[in-house]
């Protein structure tokens, strides 16, 4: 699935990834790829601004950490992020129902 196919769903996918535990940007990209069975063809560079957008919205919190001599920005989902994730999941399920109903006819 390409970027157009998941338009508007990237934030929800990132939140779902972070629900499994805190992670840095590239780990999130890798997790998205693995959890989608390599079917998600996303311009991975867009994950970084999406993380900043989510941070601005209060859905994730980010902080720089030092690990093995390498500085990395690690993100964790917040309570507001969990609420947004539930909302995003619900919205996706509704869209899926609508698409199935329309395409199935």
């Amino acid at each position, binding site marked *: 699935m390409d970027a157009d196919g998941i338009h508007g769903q990237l934030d929800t996918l990132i939140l779902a990834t972070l629900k499994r535990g805190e992670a840095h940007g590239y780990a999130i990209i890798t997790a998205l790829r693995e959890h989608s069975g390599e079917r998600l063809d996303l311009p991975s*560079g867009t994950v970084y*601004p999406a993380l900043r*957008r989510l941070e601005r919205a209060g859905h994730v919190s980010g902080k720089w950490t030092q690990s093995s001599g390498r500085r990395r920005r690690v993100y964790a989902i917040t309570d507001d992020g969990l609420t947004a994730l539930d909302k995003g999941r619900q919205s996706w399920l509704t869209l899926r129902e609508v698409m199935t109903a329309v395409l199935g006819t």
Partner: protein
Amino acid sequence: MSDYVEAVARPLRGPRRLRADMLAELADGFDEAVAEGVTSGLDRTEAAGRAAEAFGPARAVAAEFQRELEAAQARRTAWTLLAVLPAMTILWDLFGGEGETGLAVTLLARVIDTATAAAFVTAALVIAGRVGSRAASLCGASGLASIGAALAGSVAIMLIADPAGTPAALPFLAAASAAGSAWVAASSLRALRAARAAA
């Protein structure tokens, strides 16, 4: 910095520290993608090309980053307006002298106050999150309009006001106003530049 990260960085306008912070994070991820390619057997140039392809068009990534920089600059300019404009108004109220100034001067002062109030309200709405994607351009424009009205109004007042009513603290007020105006104007221009880069 890799060619890819440089291409993303080039069009970005906004708060310097945030820009550097975002680019450092992107560069870290890009380096990791390149290292992954090298580990899988590619040479460094091929790995960098593969990573750039996976990260997507630099212009699209830059556009997403620019939206964040624009939002951050809008908030920064809004705080500047909220802090500086009332301070300048209070200074003039405290040290600007009293007495009969005449209708023209009173009207000009009201024009300045109105422009200041409009910029203040715009800034407050931006901080409250009530202004959407146009926050930076609105903040920048209202900040400049406020300073423009204050400068034009002040010059006009100086020309038509009775010199006998000139406040004793005028040099201090003029210096403080010049500093405040320069601060607001610089921040407003940065907001407009960030908004233009995001357009």
